[in-house]
């Protein structure tokens, strides 16, 4: 197990290295590069721009710039924002909480509802409920998240007036209830896709388990149907879901970006979008790297948990 862990960790580090190279190359090879932000102001002479390039080290060869950036980054210095001079890590740190809150809540919700739909669909295969769930999941996967967000705002905020149309809390009212009230809309939107994914995979995982020998044994022993489903089938059907959840992180992050934009949620996605508009390269690079880290962490943790949850999997080889 530890050998497997070590190798898996090594792979992740290598991947992260490649990821950083791709990200750095994309941002610096694009027309203009980081200097374009200063050039866009229009009131700078070429000498000014040259001096800025000199001071920021942007006039050196790209590999050298990359090596320096990587070195500083590993030392914990992710640079300073072009916009307000704050350290990038500090800026990201003040936004990541809102995003994680949104992501974790909707994942939890999606797991509960998705698992329930999936199990019911598997037990009553080809029933009306199952067909509707299948179609519903397919449509949920196809609806543009931002449009669903607009619909939710229109129905629940504009029409019914039940939910606030944005922000994390009302200014001056930091109570938990107020925060939860603001969380409902964005979570509904972000959880939609995850719920669809969970219900689909839960259904097929459950169908696979239901036909296993140990379920037949349990049934032959005369256990109640409820106990068979919960103690024998469900627990085993959950195993593959660990992997699904781990691999779902990129989709969740993408969804969070869009949801945060629609609901003016002060998270990483909005930060990324704002930084892009300002061409705030250090922050853009920081968020890109952090999202890659989260994605890798997701699959790494999923692998780990799977190993713990399912001792049959030998990872020595």
């Amino acid at each position, binding site marked *: 197990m530890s050998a497997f862990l070590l190798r898996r960790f090594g792979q992740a580090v290598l991947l992260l290295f490649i990821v950083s190279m791709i990200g750095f190359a994309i941002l610096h090879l694009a*027309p203009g590069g980081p200097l374009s932000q200063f050039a866009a102001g229009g009131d700078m002479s070429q000498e000014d721009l040259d001096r800025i390039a000199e001071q920021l080290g942007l006039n050196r060869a790209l590999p050298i710039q990359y090596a320096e950036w990587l070195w500083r980054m590993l030392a914990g210095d992710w640079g300073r924002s072009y916009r307000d001079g704050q350290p990038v890590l500090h800026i990201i740190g003040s936004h990541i909480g809102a995003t994680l809150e949104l992501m974790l809540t909707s994942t939890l919700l999606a797991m509960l509802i998705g698992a329930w739909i999936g199990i019911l669909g598997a037990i009553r295969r080809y029933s009306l409920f199952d067909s509707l769930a299948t179609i519903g999941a397919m449509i949920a996967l*196809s609806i543009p998240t931002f449009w669903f967000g*607009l*619909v939710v705002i*229109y129905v629940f905020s504009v029409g019914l007036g039940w939910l606030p149309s944005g922000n994390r809390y009302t200014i001056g009212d930091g109570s938990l209830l107020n925060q939860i009230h603001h969380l409902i809309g964005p979570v509904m939107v972000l959880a939609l896709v995850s719920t669809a994914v969970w219900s689909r995979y839960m259904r097929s995982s459950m169908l696979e388990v239901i036909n296993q020998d140990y379920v037949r044994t349990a049934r032959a022993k005369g256990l109640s149907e409820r106990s068979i489903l919960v103690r024998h089938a469900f627990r085993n059907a959950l195993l593959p879901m660990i992997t699904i959840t781990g691999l779902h992180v990129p989709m969740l992050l993408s969804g969070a970006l869009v949801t945060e934009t629609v609901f003016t949620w002060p998270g990483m996605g909005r930060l990324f979008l704002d930084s892009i508009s300002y061409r705030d390269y250090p922050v853009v690079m920081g968020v890109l790297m952090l999202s890659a880290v989260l994605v890798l962490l997701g699959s790494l943790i999923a692998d780990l948990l799977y190993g713990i949850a399912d001792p049959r999997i030998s990872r020595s080889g």
Partner: protein
Amino acid sequence: MSVSDLDRAAVLPPERLWNSPGFRRFRRHKLAVFGAAAIVALTLACVIGPWLLPYTDTYIDIRARFALPFTGPHILGTDPLGRDILARLLMAGRISLAVGFSAMMIAMAIGICIGLVAGFYEGVVGAALMRFVDAMLCFPSIFLLLAISALIQPSVASIVILIAATSWMEVARVVEAQIRALKTREFAQAAVSFGASHSRIMFRELLPNAIAPIIVAATLNVAHAILAESYISFLGFGIQPPTPSWGNMLESAQSYLTSAPWLAIFPGITITLAVTSFNFVGDGLRDALDPRMDLP
């Protein structure tokens, strides 16, 4: 549908093709048939529709601003400038569908080539290519799309290339896995022993046998590309007005959500319909082309 099925399908007369096992499986998949019909209808409407309407997508009827849908001469109402929503929707459909298809073609070309090479030359080349694929998959696709689209001058062509450049990885993975499995089969070994060139083995022997999962991936890829276009256009970095696209119609509708909700409703429904249809068809094709699903 196995390879031989597919080969036969290519030479079958239409009525025999319609009754071939793969096609029967597809037809039994009602949602896939619905999806295929919807795609055809939507494409026809977008191609022919604008000629049949009395308004063009850019005709400004300033006295009919914010006309309600289903009430006057403007069937789906008008936007803040008095432009006909239906005309704009259909013209936008041309752009959005064209972006979806072209991005898919480019993404497939990249994905197939990389998957072929990585699967055929395992070893260092294959490992290096697949690690590159893995690394690209570490970026949530929207983040990468936005990061690049903000830096370049957005145009229809650049958006197509961008979407393709960020959505070929799944295809590469599918093709790589297929090629690696097919490579060990007898017909491939036979080709090697005949002394066939590497490119001949890859493109004439291996690739045609991996066509089923490629077709499925291509269909799902169109759905993904249409969604991706709408996302970046909605966020303001994609197709720029006055060229209409489903995504940027929604972006401009956002400010009138309370006063003119129909501006947001129709493009949203159209995107959902288009994407759902491609997903349904992809699902149906997967069932139809997967020999393990061979039911009596």
